[in-house]
């Protein structure tokens, strides 16, 4: 088995103007997806990320702060899942609940170094 990181990229939830009813429904979908994967021992770890983005870049360590509203494609969370290969990881990623909101999942295999 290999580890894959699933990166969830979408607009910030705050920008989507979801209604309370829609948020409850969405939460239910995520909960179901997460429960199913936990039950099957697929998820190793994962979290949701805050909207605010700070970037440090360049030789001068320049700091730029951005709010979720300013970034169209925001990494909103991640899971590390275990799967046989990329194909299986892709199958897992298909369960991501936010495709209908324009979300994207980026799948990255975690690199393993031999001793």
């Amino acid at each position, binding site marked *: 088995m290999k580890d894959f990181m699933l990166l969830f990229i979408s607009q910030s*939830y*705050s920008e989507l*103007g*979801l*209604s*309370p*009813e*829609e*948020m*409850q429904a*969405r*939460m*239910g979908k*995520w*909960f179901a997806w*997460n*429960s199913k994967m*936990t*039950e099957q021992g697929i998820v190793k770890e*994962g979290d*949701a990320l805050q909207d605010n983005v700070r970037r440090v870049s360049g030789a001068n360590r320049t700091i730029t702060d951005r709010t979720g509203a300013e970034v169209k494609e925001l990494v909103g*969370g991640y899971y590390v899942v275990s799967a046989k290969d990329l194909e299986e990881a892709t199958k897992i990623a298909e369960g991501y609940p936010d495709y209908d909101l324009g979300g994207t999942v980026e799948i990255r295999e975690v690199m393993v170094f031999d001793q």
Partner: protein
Amino acid sequence: MKEQKMIDHLFRHQYGKMVSILTRIFGLNHLEMVEDAVQDTFIIAMQKWRNQMPDNPEAWLTHAAKNRLLDLLRKSNAENNRAVKFDNGPSAIAISQLFMDEEIEDSQLRMIFTACHPALDPRDQIAFALKTIAGFSVNEIASSLLLKKETIKKRLSRARKAIKENNISFKIPEKNELLKRLERVHEVLYLIFNEGFHSNHKKILIRKDLCEEALRLTQLVLKKEELRNGAGYALFGLMCFHFSRIDSKMSDNFESIDLKNQDRSKWFFPLIELGNSAMNKSLEYEDESSYHIEAAIAAEHLKAKSFETTDWNKILELYELLFEMYGDNLTALNIAMIFIQLNENKNARKILDDIKPQELEQRAYLYYGVEAEYFININEKEKAIQCLEEALYKVTNNSEKNYLLEKKKRVG
């Protein structure tokens, strides 16, 4: 996995509760900030609960709202370098009190009465109530009222502006004013209910949501003793009676089904019983209202085992009472329809002649629909078809259009 099922509409209802409590603390001037803050709380909950739901989601949300409120206070204090002045000046201890069930209900009632303040345009009142009390989003209001998003946005901002400009305070009005405002509260709830029940929205779920909200809020109003009266109970009874047959009102193809062709076994009897007991309660008060009569009419329909065994004479009597109260064209049209059922065609004709269809505006098609029934009854098929064509020309919504087309096919 822990088996957990969240209460339906928990977020939506909790939204209304939290907005009401926070508004009570911050005052109506800060309504927009309050709504944003509550929205934020939900976004956090939505993400946090992916992995594990709290044992008591409602308590979690209330707690989070309270914390969010304290955050806002701190932030506001820091920005202004002074303590926030509350409109109503509750102390920290009083704030805790506001999160008790009874006080939450009281806050919600204050919001309902605010929504129904006469300074607000009647159309804006409905949108505002759905947003702040029922927790609907702009999109949801637009889609349930079959209006444009922009229209709803305009109505909401007009309502907020009216509240600010008139310096409306966040409370239930006192004695003299109370009765009048309560009347408007009932009207607004009645209108919300009708939007759900009589609309031709294709999505039955949306229609049910509106009806359920109206029922829930009417129930909330009746919880407080000072707000109980005959009209309130009768309105609740009326809603129960109507709502008991919502599932039989629409076919699987989203066509509306008239009373004559509804499957009466689909009617939901527990609600009818609830309606009956509300009607009994309404008799304990002296006031009378059109809701009493409308509920009595609905009850009469529910009593009948079949369309054919409906007591039309009794219903006619009730509609005539209603007509005495309002003298409106729609009631007159109903009376004409009953005369047709009773085969008293001359009486029906007389009433139809008294109505000016153009006064019915967008409902003018109903007039021609009834007139068509009249001609069918007296065997004048050609004239009936002419009427149906006129109705088809005037009708705008598809479900009604199909209904009329069907009818035309059967006559022709």
